């Protein structure tokens, strides 16, 4: 994928991607660190239909949503050959039983037979997390397993105190 980078003297830098449809989607990063999501117009490709200011947290959340979709797609592709196995992502919501507790406490593999293959936290990917890895609110837990195993896993991770 070709990312076009344009310096904006005195303001910051603009990075954008030209989509297959011809639209431009990108991010303006200001010098003071805040970012803006930009999207070009259909009728006037030089101009922007939207430029949406994002806080650091919002940008990270959006990034992980987009990034995780890609990771999931990649994982699913790799497991295509194995029949009956799928990948799911489950969000640790505020008030979840396991927020702030180590991964091992969920006893996921023992109880459901599924495997936690990654944690997505902001723009960080924690691959193959160990049992002592602490879960946090907002983490996206990527799990691989059978349909029934994944349903049980979702119940465990979304159980509330």
């Amino acid at each position, binding site marked *: 994928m070709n990312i076009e980078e344009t310096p904006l*003297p005195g303001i910051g830098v603009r990075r954008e991607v030209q989509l297959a449809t011809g639209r431009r989607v990108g991010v303006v990063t200001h010098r003071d660190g805040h970012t803006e999501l930009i999207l070009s117009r259909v009728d006037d490709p030089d101009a922007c239909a939207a430029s949406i200011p994002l806080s650091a947290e919002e940008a990270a959340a959006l990034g992980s949503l987009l990034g995780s979709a890609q990771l999931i797609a990649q994982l699913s592709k790799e497991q295509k050959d194995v029949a009956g196995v799928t990948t799911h992502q489950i969000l640790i919501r505020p008030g979840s039983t396991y927020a702030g507790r180590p991964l091992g406490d969920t006893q996921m593999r023992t109880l459901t037979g599924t495997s936690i293959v990654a944690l997505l936290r902001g723009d960080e990917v924690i691959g193959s997390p160990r049992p002592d890895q602490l879960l946090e609110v907002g983490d996206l837990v990527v799990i691989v397993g059978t349909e029934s195993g994944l349903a049980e896993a979702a119940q465990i991770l979304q159980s509330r105190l």
Partner: protein
Amino acid sequence: MDPTTLSLIQLGVVFFALGFLGRLAGRIGMSPVPLYLLGGLAFGHGGLVDLGGINDFAHIASEIGVILLLLMLGLEYTAHELVTGLRQSWMAGLLDLVLNMVPGIAVAFMLGWGPVGALVMAGITYSSSSGIIAKVLGDLGRLGNRETPVVLAILVIEDLAMAAYLPILTAVLAGVSFLGGLTTVGISLAVISAVLLGALRYGHIVSNVLESPDRESFLLKLLGAALLVAGFASALQVSAAVGAFLLGIAISGGTATNATRVLEPLRDLFAAMFFVLFGLNTDPRTIPPVLGVALALAVVSAATKVVTGWWAARRQGIATLGQARAGAALIARGEFSIVIAGLAVASGAVPKELAALATTYVLIMAVFGPVAARYVEPLVRLFQGKKSRGKEPEIIF
């Protein structure tokens, strides 16, 4: 009353009134500069109230205001951006310079102000207000637009041109002989090149000397360095403002960002004082006679900026609408036109009417520029719509 007490009260009145004017400007989404000028006009000689007690303070404060304005201008762009801008957009920059200096020069000769007046007026009509323009582009959500880098590149070159223009202006205003003038300009150009190259390679050294984890000492070091450099530059007859500008360029990276943050409130305070003093020293009664000239100059020099932006955007393969946006964005003039007029008036080498003309001109352009930038798009669409009736695009997203 004790003179100090009187000064305090007068100063308080001035700042208090400026605060309200600034708020008003923020409310209606315009630059506070024209309102400060109006405030100065109202307070000044022949204006509504007379403020004689603060002249000494106002004088030194406005000097510092100019130094801080130029220091922050230097901080705005990194040496790398300046060099890249010059390399990529020098043709657009040259067109900008020629097209927009000509109206100023023509008016000066028509009014019989001679070559010195022409040089001053050329600078006034040439320099777009990077402050107003950057803000307008951000407010209108145009930072993602394709023509925006074109506009910014022109501002970068104007910035560099300032570094050459101000020493020439200072030399000419001081009435230096032709040879002496050449020497001054030679010195300053050599210094500018040295600073640019030095800042590219050794900018971190200047930054390291000034950098401090403690905000207070950082501020004092910055201000001290700026005044020192400005003072020495002035002693070498290179113009205090240019010294501060070059220091701003030499400060790089994170230090520059922090310096901008720390200096901003100080700049706002002292620059406000500068604009007020300029207004104070302009007799409001001299404005009506130059109003017609100022309006004509505004119309012509708005058109020349539009042509500049249009041409520069077209060269980058941007469509008609984007060309129009680029042109209209460049119209706004502001703080630097007043800085140039201020230097000229203070030297006494130009007639008093120049102050009145510059004030009126900047008042018009600082207000009209952002309005033009905002409404150029619907206007051009209207024209295009007439040409291709019924083909109005409905999809926006």
